[in-house]
């Protein structure tokens, strides 16, 4: 089923794509079970979502909410305001997101400012009598205080349950204020994986901000869907004579609106870019670049060639590719020698991990295991050229212990014991301390563009050398700390043993 922009509420990832959050096995088996490998779908299973047999644990030790993904996307639009229509607890992320936002702006050389986030602070009486009046007041306050170019409204579990009619207030005030007022439905209970929050933001932007029937086309403009990473795409795409339109984070409302004028849309992580890129192609005719992601030689080559093909710049791409291969190879050879025999472990978002494992293997690092926080059996475009997991396996080989899990501490211990890595690469840093207690240093990839492209291979190689230099420090930590688990659990080889017990012991 194509993306449906007629309703205000985004369809969750598990509904659209058959997303799972629990699986353990060989990467090649997961790839075989995924929709891409199974090819055309029978009418019965719907057009998109296909099921993979999923492991379901009896409890969850930590996760993230869809609403937080709305905060770190819609909340990061520079001249907009995000209203969290929620009890105040949903606003606890504001502090950390503000620091990330400010850092991101500074890294990009943009004026540093604070987030514009407002919580409606719903209380008991609002649950009983409805929170719409407060929302209306908050929208007016936002307008007066910040004079924004758009106002986003993030819903919450509370407003979802009481059925607050957010749409009608938004419609009314959009008319009155003359700016887009955009409800984003990101109730935490709607999806088991937080990436639905990305889709909720992008759904609202597609519906209410992107310019419909644009008068002009910008043939040299490429939408790059990203978060807060450093500006590596501008110099890369400049080689092809293309300009970058960074979205969604740190963009202005106008930059979001002009997405429909661009020549193409690209991403560096299909987890993040799947919905928006497919929506721009479907609704506005802006082609999505369907290629492996820009990691390692194979991915970056193919990614650049496809951008060049879509924007008619093939010649320029070949020159650039050849020059870059030439440039990075000497240092890469040195790094390969230095990293020979080292074992790495990747623990990040799904598509992103597929890319990073490729980079590690380019560097000659052994990767026998990885933890990805969810898995999409297919992306929204359903185009097999986007099958990032198959690309990894085809070009860089299988991964023996490939795990899907939404960052559960209690499983992470056994996961690391299986492969005994020399270092881990991590996003969502909460798992890093556990690795440190085992004597394993972590590379926290705060800048998600660090490993992209040709230079990215060198960047990551240098980071590994840096972090390996801390090995002794981490070994000292390991020697002096005690893990909080019982011996029986530490001896447990299967990180999913509790999920398997549940599967056997209770209903289907």
């Amino acid at each position, binding site marked *: *089923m194509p993306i*449906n922009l*007629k*309703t*205000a*509420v985004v*369809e969750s990832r*598990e*509904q659209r794509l*058959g997303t799972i959050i629990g699986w353990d096995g060989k990467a090649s088996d997961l790839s075989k079970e995924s929709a891409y490998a199974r090819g055309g779908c029978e009418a019965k299973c*719907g057009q998109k*979502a296909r*099921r993979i047999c*999923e492991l379901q644990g009896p409890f969850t030790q930590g996760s993230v909410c869809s609403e937080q993904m709305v905060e770190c996307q819609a909340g990061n639009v520079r001249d907009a305001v995000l209203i969290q229509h929620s009890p105040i607890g949903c606003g606890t992320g504001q502090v950390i997101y503000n620091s990330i936002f400010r850092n991101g702006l500074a890294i990009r050389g943009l004026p540093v400012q604070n987030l514009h986030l407002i919580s409606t602070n719903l209380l008991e009486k609002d649950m009983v009598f*409805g929170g719409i009046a407060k929302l209306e007041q908050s929208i007016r306050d936002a307008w007066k205080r910040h004079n924004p170019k758009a106002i986003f409204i993030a819903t919450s579990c509370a407003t*979802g*349950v*009481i*059925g*607050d*009619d957010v*749409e*009608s*207030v938004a*419609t*009314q005030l959009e008319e009155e204020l003359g700016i887009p007022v955009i409800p984003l439905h990101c109730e935490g209970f709607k999806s088991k994986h937080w990436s639905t929050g990305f889709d909720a933001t992008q759904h609202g932007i597609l519906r209410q901000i992107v310019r419909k029937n644009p008068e002009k086309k910008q043939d040299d403009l490429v939408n790059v869907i990203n978060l807060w990473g450093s500006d590596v795409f501008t110099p890369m795409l400049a080689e092809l004579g293309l300009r970058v339109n960074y979205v969604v984070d740190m963009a202005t409302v106008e930059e979001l609106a002009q997405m429909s004028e661009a020549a193409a849309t690209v991403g560096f992580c299909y987890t993040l870019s799947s919905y928006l890129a497919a929506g721009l192609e479907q609704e506005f005719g802006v082609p999505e670049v369907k290629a492996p992601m820009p990691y390692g030689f194979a991915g970056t080559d193919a990614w650049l060639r496809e951008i060049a093909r879509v924007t008619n710049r093939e010649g320029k791409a070949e020159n650039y590719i050849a020059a870059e291969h030439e440039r990075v190879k000497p240092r890469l050879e040195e790094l390969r020698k230095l990293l020979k025999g080292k074992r790495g472990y990747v623990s990040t978002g799904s598509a992103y991990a597929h890319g990073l494992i490729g980079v590690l293997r380019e560097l000659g690092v052994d990767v026998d295991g990885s933890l990805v926080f969810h898995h999409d059996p297919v992306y929204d475009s359903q185009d097999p050229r986007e099958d990032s997991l198959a690309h990894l396996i085809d070009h860089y080989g299988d991964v023996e212990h490939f795990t899907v899990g939404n960052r559960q501490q209690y499983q992470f211990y056994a996961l690391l014991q299986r492969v005994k890595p020399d270092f881990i690469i991590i996003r969502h840093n909460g798992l890093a301390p556990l690795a440190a207690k085992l004597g394993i240093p972590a590379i926290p990839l705060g800048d998600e563009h660090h490993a992209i492209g040709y230079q990215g291979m060198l960047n990551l190689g240098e980071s590994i050398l840096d972090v390996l230099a801390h090995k002794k420090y981490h070994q000292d930590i390991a020697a002096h700390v005690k893990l909080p688990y019982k011996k029986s659990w530490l001896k447990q080889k299967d990180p999913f043993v509790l999920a398997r017990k549940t599967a056997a012991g209770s209903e289907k």
Partner: protein
Amino acid sequence: MGKKAIKQIAIYGKGGIGKSTTTSNISAALVEAGYKVMQFGCDPKADSTNTLRGGEYIPSVLDLLRENARVDAHEAVFQGFKGVYCVEAGGPQPGVGCAGRGIITAVQLLKQQDVFEELDLDYVIYDVLGDVVCGGFAVPVREGIAEHVFTISSADFMAIYAANNLFRGIKTYSSKGGALLGGVIANSINSDFHRDIIDDFVEKTQTQVVEYIPRSLTVTQAELQGKTTIEAAPKSEQAAIYRRLARKIADHTESKVPSPLDAKELRAWSSSWADQLIEIERKTQRLAVGA
């Protein structure tokens, strides 16, 4: 898209007032007239469409949600009398969970999966339980769902209170693109004073009566067979009344914002009628004694 617009109608009323009976007869009359119709039951009891399917219960949208990780909303669509499409939102057992959220979830699932468009429907008729107790029960009257609301009421004061409550809900949403009121379907009207009470109420609240439906044994007999009156007694007078009602609803285009009575007005209004009713009662008793 160039597709025809689907006319979406919501029918509300107090529990037990004959809402599902009337709605099913409207649906039956519309399919009989050649339209493509879906009846969407929004009541946790999930029995709105029973008489369109020979008294049979169908699995509800929320039954699917309970049992599957991924819901294909198409599986909740069943066909009944002359091809009418039947959907039940369903909901939790009494006393647990949130029936209002159930309606929100069920309606969203069908809309997200484009079910109405795929079936190329002319009419979607929502049969919604009663008193608009929370945001969930108001979903069918909100922006982008039903355009017209009809409320079923008898001359019973409790039913009229429920109707008045619904009018308040409609008024709340009316300024924000919500559905407007088509009028009142007056049910179980068997005497002049029943009619007078309803007429007076619609005048006070600035709406209209769409049709007066008498209480009839034919309806009860049909229900006991698990059928609508249209199906069980197609030639009866009652069936003719339902067909006339359906035609009026089909032809209806202009709905309005009602003027609900506030609590004080409603009390004053009902006590004035109580006095009159006592007077009528006395007269009948006197007549009886006289005879």
